[in-house]
Structures are given as structure tokens and as C-alpha cells.
């Protein structure tokens, strides 16, 4: 009886501590976001970060978009194998899946690794080597030079990520559909063109931009408050990727409900 009571106590304690630490983290992240939105911007650093975090991630986005296209076609053929649908429906549904659902989600999760983990490891290394304190001693604002530049760079590169990933995913899905299902390119593209709505494009761009900004902010947050030597860098990177994956999936639902 006492052992059962101990176990129940432990479960209650664990649940309470999980809720408390997650609420603390959410509040701390929100305060961090407010603080960084009050600082100024530095144009040169923003452009440099757009190259370092944005342009250098484009090759990974392109590679993964090829597979996103293939996966979309496999999902579609699984879905409609037993329904008799016209070929032009394929263009419509595949384009909606790529622009609105699978494209932004998979690209956002890949960018969580590429952008979020990279920013977190850079900034946590700077924090652990005390370079951020050195910047403050030289009366330079680390928020302005380090953090705002990365966040704004990812905000500006959001539409670029959307454009690249969508283009390559649509092309690869069309080629794959032609090879496996025998759907001609004319049917595919005419189905896509006839059913295009502005909602689809707006939702895709807003989703990809908000995912990349989330990755950058969470990476900067965990890097800025890292501590504990080399293990601290690993812990900050891991927490970044986990938290940004969860936040991306949560934002997915919120944006779908708001924009649909």
C-alpha cells in the first residue's frame, strides 16, 4: 500500500514538474521574443546571415523537396486507388498537398535541423566561450548584431524557401506521376492550373515563413541561455530541435484553422 502511494506521489510530482517547466519555458521564450523585437537591426549582418543560414540551406531544401514530391504521389495513389477519379483531379490534389500540407511541414521540420540546430550551436558556443559577455563589455548590443540579424534573415528567406521547395516538389511529383501512373504532363498541369486558388499560395508562404522564423527564434533562445561547457552545446542543440519540431506542428494546426 505504501509502495503504491509512493508511486502515485512520484507520478503526480512528475506531471506537475513537466507542466511547470513547460509553462516556464513558454513564458521565457515569449519574454525573449518581446525583448528582441524591441532592438534595432543591422543591415550588413542581416544580409550576411541571409547568405550563411539561408542560401546555404537551399541545397538541403531542394534535395528534400524531390523526395517530398515522390511521397506526395505515393500518398495520392494510396488514397485514390479504389475511387474512380479523373486524371485532372490528380493535379489538383497533388498541388494542394504540396503547397499547403506536406511541403511546408516537411520543409519546416528539415529546417528545424538545418537552421535551428546550426544557430543554436553557434550562439551557445559563443555564450560558453563568453563572447556574448565580451560584446556587452564593448558596449555592442548582442541582441542587435547576433540575434536580430538571424531572425530577420530567416524571415526574409521564408518566401525563398517556399518557392524553391514548391517548384522542385511539383516538378519531381509530375515526373514521378508520369513514370508510374501514366498521367500525362498536360493533364497534370491543366488540373493544377484550373483549380488554383489564392488561398493555397498565401497559406503556403505564411506557413513556411512562420516555420523558419520559429526555428530561428527557438535556436537563438536556447543558445543564448546555454550553460555547462561542451555538454551544454549538445543540450542546447537537442532542446532546440525538439522544441521547434513541436512548435512547428502546433503552428501548423493554428495557421490551417486561421487561414482556411
Amino acid at each position, binding site marked *: 500500500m505504501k509502495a503504491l502511494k509512493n508511486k502515485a506521489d512520484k507520478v503526480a510530482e512528475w506531471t506537475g514538474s513537466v507542466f511547470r517547466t513547460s509553462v516556464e519555458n513558454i513564458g521565457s521564450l515569449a519574454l525573449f521574443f518581446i525583448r528582441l523585437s524591441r532592438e534595432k537591426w543591422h543591415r550588413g549582418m542581416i544580409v550576411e546571415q541571409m547568405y550563411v543560414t539561408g542560401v546555404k540551406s537551399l541545397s538541403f531544401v531542394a534535395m*528534400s523537396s524531390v523526395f517530398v514530391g515522390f*511521397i506526395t504521389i505515393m500518398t495520392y495513389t*494510396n488514397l485514390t486507388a479504389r475511387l474512380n477519379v479523373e486524371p485532372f483531379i490528380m493535379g489538383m490534389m497533388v498541388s494542394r498537398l504540396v503547397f*499547403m500540407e506536406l511541403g511546408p511541414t516537411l520543409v519546416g521540420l*528539415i529546417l528545424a535541423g538545418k537552421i535551428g540546430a546550426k544557430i543554436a*550551436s553557434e550562439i*551557445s558556443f559563443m555564450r560558453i566561450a563568453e563572447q556574448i559577455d565580451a560584446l556587452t563589455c564593448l558596449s555592442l548590443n548582442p541582441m542587435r548584431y547576433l540575434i536580430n540579424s538571424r531572425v530577420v534573415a530567416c524571415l526574409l528567406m521564408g518566401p525563398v524557401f517556399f518557392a524553391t521547395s514548391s517548384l522542385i516538389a511539383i516538378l519531381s511529383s509530375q515526373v514521378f506521376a508520369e513514370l508510374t501512373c501514366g498521367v500525362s504532363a498536360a493533364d497534370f498541369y491543366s488540373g493544377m492550373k484550373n483549380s488554383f486558388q489564392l488561398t493555397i499560395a498565401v497559406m503556403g508562404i505564411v506557413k513556411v515563413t512562420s516555420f523558419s522564423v520559429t526555428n530561428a527564434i527557438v535556436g537563438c533562445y536556447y543558445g543564448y541561455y546555454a550553460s555547462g561547457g561542451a555538454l551544454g552545446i*549538445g543540450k542546447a*542543440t*537537442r532542446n532546440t530541435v525538439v522544441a521547434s519540431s513541436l512548435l512547428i506542428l502546433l503552428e501548423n494546426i493554428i495557421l490551417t484553422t486561421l487561414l482556411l
Partner: protein
Amino acid sequence: MDSGKSSLINLLASHFLIISSYIASFMRHTARMGYLIVNTLGQLKYSLKMKAAIVNEMKTSGLDSLPLVMAASAFIGGETVLQTEFQFSGIVPLRYLGMAVCKALTTELCPVIVAFVVSSRVSTSYAAEIGTMKTGEQIDALSCLSLNPLRYLAVPKLVACVIMLPILVVFGELVAFLASIITAVLAIDITLHSYLQGLRLFFHPADLLVGIFKSSVFGAIICFTGVYCGFNTDGGAAGVGRSTTTAVVVSAILILAFDFLIAYLLK
């Protein structure tokens, strides 16, 4: 014009060198990863003696990822219902909504998203742990004591990941289906009965089993990428940070690639 011609050739040659160096490093990494995989599989016969280590790894990488997996799957379940309803609007009757959601979740979405989320947690911690050990020269110390580092470091992690990831995907699919039922009933103009009928329509156990098989392949990918990037760390603390980043990104792309390959081969 003489300097113009040679600068054009210089430009082409420098581009060719960049591309060929990318190809060469890709092949080198593939070869080393193959070496790691074959050597680890050769040490698998000692796994029966390391049950305590395997169970420990199963707890830290599998059991501690369960809350994360359940949260991610809940979001994916709700999201799939909303999106599929938008795509079916007016073209396909809503009684097929359950069928579409069930097929999408069991075959593609749940294994891939759960593998992404677990790899973000597990392969970074493997890469950080083994990278820190390599920076502190502990792996060289293991080989000096004539102990095989792959046997004691990589084999328990491999067995743990391959066993735990299908279990996590099963729990994830349960939570995703529950979340999809809640979303369908609350947010969409469909009755619970017709949604549940749609879930059962054209259901094959083969879809479910293919998803589970896929997820154990994803578990092997997660383990091997984390361990590989950990073993190839160089450069101290910054190198550990770099190798954790590489581990997450490479495992994400390999998960997508193998997802397509397995779906294509098993069609």
C-alpha cells in the same frame, strides 16, 4: 584576349573542382558509413550479453521520447483531418474522409513525422555523447584496452532504436487517430458514425504492417547517423556542435529517401 581565355578556363575549372570535390566527399562519407554499418552488424552477436545496456538505451531513447511523440502525433492527426476536408470540398463526398485520413496516417505521415521528431532528440544526443567521448579521447582509450568501441557504444543503441521505434509509432498512431476523431467531430460537418465507418472502409492490415516495418528501418537510420557523426567529430566543443547539426539534417534526408524507397519497392 589571352588573359580572357585563360580566365574563362579558370572559371570552368574552379566550378568543376568544386562539384567534383562535393561528389568525392559524398562518396567518401558513403564508404565510411558502409564500413560502420557492416562492422556494427558484425558485432551484433555480442548483443545477447549486453542486455542491461540495451534496456538502459531503450529507456533513455525510447521511453523518454514517448511524451514528445504523443504530442506530435496529436497535432498531425488534427492537421490531416482539416487539410483532407479542404481538399475534398465539393469533389469527393465526405464519407470517404475517414478512409483518406486512415490511409495517409498509417502509411506515410505517422511513421515519417514520428521518425523526424525522435531523430531530432535521439540522434543529436547520440552524436553529442559520442562526440564528447571522441574529443576527450575516450574512444582511443577503449581501443587501447583492446575493447571494440562499436561493440560497447553502437550495438546497444542500434538494438534499442530498432526495437523502440515501431512501439513509438504504434502509440503515435493511436493518439493521432484519437485526435483526428476529436477534430472531425468538433470542426467538420460530419457525424461520428460516418467518420468511423470511413476509417474502417477499405482498411488493410498490410498498410499498418508496412508502416511498422518502415519505422524500424528509420530507427536503424537514426542510430547510424547519430553514431557516425559522433565518431567523425573533430575540433573540440565547436566540432561537437557541428556534428550534432549534421546528424539531424542527414538523418532527416535519409528518412525521406528511405521512406520513398520502401514504399516504391513494396508496392
